[in-house]
């Protein structure tokens, strides 16, 4: 071999894709349940690198309401869902804290859409993600993670509090439950499809 394949010019043509990979983002504030959500639905547990919170994090990582959390996810959470043989859906958790926002544009590149996980006790932590996806024009849904000891709000109240456009779905979810996470992802992909159809009919 070798003679029919030119390494520099690539005249043999690129190999045929054995599968097509798509990307969804899971965003949200620190401790909002991103790792739990990815782990609930993926065919495997997500890969993670966790760093112990040290005194260096005091004042940087907001622990109000999540006092028992002693580590934070500093690298990528990601999971993979294989569909049939040809489509693979990748879920990437965006590092929540704003000081990791330098990673967001790389992760968002080519993504179909995003889930923003909201903790009603600390709704302001969603603002950076909401602003980011709105400015990028990336379709997203807001999923209110119903923590056991958190107060319950109507999704419409959360929509108002976050000043969301009417076409952004706001849903309740339990990031630990497969069925719930599945419904959130279905809502997201439906939103992406609606957006695609609208964009197509405008042309």
């Amino acid at each position, binding site marked *: *071999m*070798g003679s029919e*394949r030119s*390494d*520099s010019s*690539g005249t043999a043509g*690129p*190999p*045929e*894709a*054995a*599968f*097509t*990979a*798509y*990307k969804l983002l899971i965003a949200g504030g620190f401790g909002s349940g991103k790792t739990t959500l990815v782990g609930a*639905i993926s*065919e*495997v*547990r997500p*890969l*993670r*690198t966790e760093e112990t919170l040290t005194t260096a994090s005091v004042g940087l990582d907001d622990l109000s309401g999540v006092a028992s959390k002693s580590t934070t996810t500093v*690298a*990528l959470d*990601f999971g*993979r*869902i*294989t*569909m*049939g043989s040809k*489509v*693979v*859906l*990748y879920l*990437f958790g965006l590092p929540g804290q704003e000081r990791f926002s330098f990673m967001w544009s*790389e*992760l968002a*590149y*080519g993504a*179909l859409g995003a889930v923003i996980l909201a903790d009603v006790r600390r709704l302001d932590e969603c603002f950076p993600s909401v602003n980011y996806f709105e400015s990028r024009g990336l379709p997203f849904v807001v999923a209110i993670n119903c923590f056991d000891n958190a107060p319950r709000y109507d999704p419409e109240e959360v929509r108002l509090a976050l000043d969301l456009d009417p076409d952004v779905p706001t849903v309740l979810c339990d990031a630990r439950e*497969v069925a719930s996470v*599945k419904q959130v*992802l*279905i809502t997201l*992909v*439906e939103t*992406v*499809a609606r957006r*695609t*159809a609208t964009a*197509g009919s405008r042309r």
Partner: protein
Amino acid sequence: MPPSGRWRPRDYGPVVRPYAVTGGRTEPADGEVLDLIAVVVTTGRAVGPDDHPPLTPEHRRILGLCQQQITVADLAADTTLPVGVVRVLLADLITQGVVTVVRQRPPAQRTQNEVLQEILNGLRAL
């Protein structure tokens, strides 16, 4: 794509400083930053003894995983190397012509909506 057996949780901690395995290089030699879901595969070209840079054990691990089409993210997970390191090592292998990027072009007759429908069906079937 890799068998799911490689997706095992494991203790995750660097034994050496991340960029030690790239000889201190932090940028891919070809300047192309591969997306996390970019798919790569071996070309079938054998590695020669004169190839430069010489292949490290990490290069060879990546090369072995590239026997089947695999994403950059999966490579990083399977090798437990940081994504940035995987990109540098992959760029070496691509420059040497032993690995190539699989361009993800969905067949022309499939519209974006058909793809989304397929993803929806897949999610509902979970």
